[in-house]
């Protein structure tokens, strides 16, 4: 019972105390308390001495009994204003935070939606690309069977070409040439679609430079009268690459140089060190590469020349070459013009830059 009363008293005191500490109450209670205390103190001090008419008594009453409490009241009001300003600022910050949060949520949702849209579009593009590759592969396969019959028929007909009238023979020879070109095209299309579908397996290993370049030239220029100028640094270390696809790219360079150069001009085949890589290049005396062509020369269906009189081609060889060389960590490029004669610039140089095969250090002969 006693404890209960004590607890109630404690609760009452705590409530009163917190009520007193409330600034709204304190702003009046404290100055009032100070005024009453100061006046009481002054009265106690001066009344016994009968000094109520003393100007000091009046002065002390004014200073301690009125001015002091008024200054305290002013300070409390100022503190109140400060606290109110802080509360307002905190409320504003909170409101800003809420606003920011809702904006972030809104933007994130928009971004997620856009990402989902992009994902969907990417999937569609991939599907379309796969469909295109499948279509190209299908068409190419379907073309290969009739091409076999076409090539074979022409081969058969031309077996005894000496018995044919000259005109018929000439027509069959043109047909054979064109049929071979179409065959090459179908093969290139298939290579490109395989490469784009990631179905090309690259086998890296050391590749001796001189045999590579000489073999490529021998194959491309087998039936050509083209003069070749060689500039291959002796004892070059082997390249680190895929010998089949390296040779294919060099063959394409040589074939282009042969196609676009005047018949009486040579082509130059060079190989040398270029920094820590090996540079293989093919220079020609052709018309060179125009500036508008230079930006898209390694893109699909980019022909070095587009005039009707230009040599035949499909504009896929350099694109395929770039893809093949990049897949082997090599670089590919060109320089044009290369030559200047009587103020006329001409020629182009196509090159590949390949890493050197690692050298054995302790493998002694």
């Amino acid at each position, binding site marked *: 019972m006693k404890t209960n009363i004590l607890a109630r008293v404690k609760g009452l005191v705590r409530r009163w105390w917190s009520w007193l500490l409330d600034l709204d109450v304190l702003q009046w209670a404290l100055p009032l308390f100070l005024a009453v205390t100061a006046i009481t103190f002054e009265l106690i001090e001066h009344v016994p001495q009968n000094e109520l008419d003393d100007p000091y008594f009046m002065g002390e009453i004014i200073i301690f009994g009125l001015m002091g409490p008024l200054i305290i009241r002013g300070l409390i009001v100022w503190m109140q204003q400060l606290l109110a300003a802080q509360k307002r600022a905190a409320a504003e910050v909170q409101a800003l935070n809420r606003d920011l949060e809702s904006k972030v949520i809104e933007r994130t949702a928009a971004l997620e939606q856009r990402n989902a849209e992009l994902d969907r579009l990417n999937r569609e593009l991939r599907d379309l690309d796969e469909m295109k590759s499948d279509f190209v592969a299908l068409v190419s*396969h*379907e073309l*290969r*069977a*009739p*091409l*076999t*019959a*076409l*090539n*074979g*028929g022409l*081969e*058969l007909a031309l*077996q005894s070409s000496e018995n044919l009238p000259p005109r018929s023979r000439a027509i069959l020879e043109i047909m054979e040439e064109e049929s071979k070109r179409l*065959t090459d095209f*179908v093969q290139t299309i*298939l290579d490109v679609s395989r490469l784009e579908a990631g*179905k090309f*397996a690259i*086998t*890296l*290993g*050391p*590749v*001796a430079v*001189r*045999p590579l370049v000489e073999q490529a030239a021998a194959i491309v220029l087998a039936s050509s009268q083209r003069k070749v100028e060689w500039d291959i640094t002796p*004892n070059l*270390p*082997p390249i680190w690459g*895929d*010998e*089949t696809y390296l040779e294919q790219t060099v063959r394409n360079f040589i074939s282009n140089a042969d196609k676009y150069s005047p018949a009486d001009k040579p082509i130059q085949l060079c190989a040398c060190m270029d920094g820590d890589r090996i540079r293989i290049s093919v220079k020609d005396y052709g018309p060179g590469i125009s500036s508008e062509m230079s930006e898209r020369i390694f893109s699909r269906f980019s022909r070095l020349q587009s005039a009707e009189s230009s040599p035949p081609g499909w504009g896929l060889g350099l694109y395929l070459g770039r893809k093949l060389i990049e897949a082997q960590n090599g670089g590919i490029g060109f320089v044009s013009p290369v030559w200047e004669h009587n103020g006329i610039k001409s020629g182009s140089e196509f090159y590949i830059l390949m890493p050197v*095969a*690692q*050298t*054995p250090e302790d*493998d*002694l*002969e």
Partner: protein
Amino acid sequence: MTDLLIIDDDKGLTQLLSDYFSGQGYNVRAVENGKLGLRAMYERQPEIILLDVTMPEKDGWETLKRIREVSNVPVIMLTARGDEADILHGFSLGADDYVNKPFSFAQLAARMHAVLGRSAQGSAADNKLSSDGLEVDIRLKRVWRDGQPLTLTPTEFKLLVTLMRHAGDVISPRDLVKEVWGAQYASEIGHVRRYVWHLRQKIEPDPENPRYIHNDRGFGYRFGSGETK
């Protein structure tokens, strides 16, 4: 006269092939599907078969399987599908060679000649080399070590085959260059050292302590077991 059976549904092509190979001295019979092909094989017992892969009813793979159940006659597959997986599938079913369309008739004739030559010698074993867990299939151009396939470049493969064919003998770098690259590169023997080093990285379980390719210092390289001299 060599009996040749052509199984292909492309009538135009079979007609031209018949004309061409008749002119080459073959006794040719052409049929248009696998079923007729199997019947013709039982009746005629051809010495070589050209078999198209893509055909209606019984396709080339199915036909080849049936042929191999009863005969070892050389079969060359003709196909417009040039994927490596297809080629390996063809060989795994027992095809003797594989020709991609479009092909030249002269090229096909040369392949047939080679296949008939191998068949006459009964030299299937010559296509395979093996030593201490290393197996090489020359026709497939494939190498395995302890059953695991290894990936070699064509030149590395040629180098390995050359060394294996002379197993136990020391071959000088100059002779190796001559055999692998050709006599015109005999002065560039620096290649060999690098090629052998890289080949060891690919085929040896521990290239620092080679199991297969050894250096005989001052003389050359030797394939086979034994201590390095």
